[in-house]
């Protein structure tokens, strides 16, 4: 129980600081939306009036949002949906199998069940939607965004917008974001800027990093390792990995993820150069085809990969990336 009290205190302090910081914002975005389904003992129901009289808080920039602990998931129908979302998130191939086309789970790239700051945490993403994305040239709802994850990162079939899978992951995200200000750009959202390497990223240098720091978990051939029929360490390329449409297939995105989070448990230990090099190395291997494939690699490159950080359509070691059509969605 004492641990619960400590957690509640921490969440109280965090929520209080967040609320106080937001109350300084001039725009209407400073309003905080409390979560109606949170149990009465949760910190999210701290009255706004009480926090305004609190001591001046740190600025939003220096304060790190903390999601509520698992023990705070309420024991009601909403809480059951939150739990389902968490299960799907951590064991995607098992609990959303029909929509998954590879061997990954959401947690592979959103570490610690979507909680870890600097690993594209859900609590930061949730409050930024709906938003316009240049990827698909439209304003995306949160459901749209999740469907994109299934289509590209999971090499699968996007679940219908009203499906339980989408609802559950949304409920989980919303609950993780308890107390976070709607519309805020929270610190440690997404993957942090990995810095600029002093040398242009290199495949050969990336191979050295890969061999020394990555093969222990991801295997020498990058195909990951399994136990009890499920991947423990995910495949980085090949038929069971994310497809060419995924964000992780872009070198700058991969470098940012890797710099902050890899090796697993030792995130932050690689140099900027190492992170960029090994990102380029990883993204220079074949993987399932981009689901938006237009019929030719060149045309698909022009339409969807016309930027300096996509390796799709580039030739590496004599091979045209994207040209070897790997088995696609295993559920199709």
């Amino acid at each position, binding site marked *: 129980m004492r*641990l619960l009290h400590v957690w509640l205190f921490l969440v109280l302090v965090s929520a209080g600081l967040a609320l106080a910081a937001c109350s300084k914002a001039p725009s209407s975005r400073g309003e905080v939306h409390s979560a109606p389904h949170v149990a009465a003992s949760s910190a999210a129901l701290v009255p706004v009036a009480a926090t305004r009289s609190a001591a001046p808080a740190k600025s939003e920039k220096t304060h790190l949002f903390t999601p509520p602990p*698992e*023990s705070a998931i309420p024991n009601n129908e909403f809480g059951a949906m939150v*739990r389902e979302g*968490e*299960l799907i998130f*951590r*064991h995607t191939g*098992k*609990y959303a199998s029909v929509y998954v086309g590879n061997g990954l789970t959401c947690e592979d790239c959103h*570490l*610690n069940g979507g*909680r*870890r700051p600097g690993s594209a945490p859900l609590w930061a993403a949730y409050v930024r939607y709906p938003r316009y994305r240049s990827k698909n040239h439209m304003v995306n709802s949160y459901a749209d965004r999740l469907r994109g994850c299934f289509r590209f990162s999971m090499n699968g079939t996007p679940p219908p917008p009203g499906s339980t899978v989408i609802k559950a992951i949304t409920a989980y995200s919303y609950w993780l974001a308890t107390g976070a200000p709607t519309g805020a750009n929270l610190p440690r959202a997404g993957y942090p800027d990995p810095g600029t390497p002093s040398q242009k990223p290199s495949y050969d240098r990336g191979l050295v990093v890969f061999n020394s*720091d990555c093969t*222990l*978990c991801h*295997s020498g051939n990058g195909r990951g*390792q*399994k*136990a*009890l029929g*499920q991947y*423990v*360490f995910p495949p980085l390329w090949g038929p069971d990995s994310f497809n060419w449409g995924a964000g992780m297939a872009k070198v700058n995105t991969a470098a940012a993820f890797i710099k902050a989070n890899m*090796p*697993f*448990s*030792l*995130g932050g230990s690689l140099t900027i150069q190492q992170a960029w090099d090994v990102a380029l190395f990883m993204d220079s291997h074949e993987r399932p085809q981009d689901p938006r494939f237009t019929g030719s690699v060149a045309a698909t490159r022009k339409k969807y990969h016309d930027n300096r950080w996509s390796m799709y359509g580039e030739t590496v070691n004599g091979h045209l990336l994207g040209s070897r059509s790997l088995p696609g969605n295993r559920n199709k």
Partner: protein
Amino acid sequence: MALTLLIAGGAVTVRAANLSPSVRSVAQQGAENGAKTCSACHGANGMGQPTAGVPRLAGLNAAYLVQQLEDFVSGTRRSPVMTPIAKALSQGQREALAVHYSKLPISVSKGGYVSTPLTTDNLGERLARRGIWSKQVPGCVQCHGPHGIGVGPNFPPLVGQSALYIANQLHAWQGGPRRNDPLGLMRHVALALSEKDIRAVAEWFATQPVIPQEGTR
């Protein structure tokens, strides 16, 4: 019984002076050059002695076992008991013993969680499944596999090991007698754990049903 093919990749080198008796015999009776018998401590069935903190060897990955013996020799893993034994064995004997133990059957218990919600206040289970991410410590099973059954040659099983053995190893990584963890992963983990954490997680794994690691039988 003839010496079996080695998984570890090296050639079998059996010195003429120790033209060995069968591998099983080495394990049970020791080698001519003085290596004590393995079974005296690790059990005839290779299941170890939980109360004495002697680990199970049965069903562990052969390459992992070879590596541990080599690390005792090089000193990156130190044990007053195992170091002289490992040194007394030839490389061929180490490899053969590793294969022998990797193939020993273990009694398999059924049950245990696979991928269920974490609805517990049990500190050990929370550490085992969730870790302490504020210190960038993953749940143990995120590397050691579901149930802690072990993954490949680098992440040995935690299940089927005694609480005393697991706790001893965590202390060894903290204090330095064991420095053979690739990338220093375990040292980083161990240094983040309190005494209470170590006790809780060691006891949790010790009470989990034993499931064999894949690829070792």
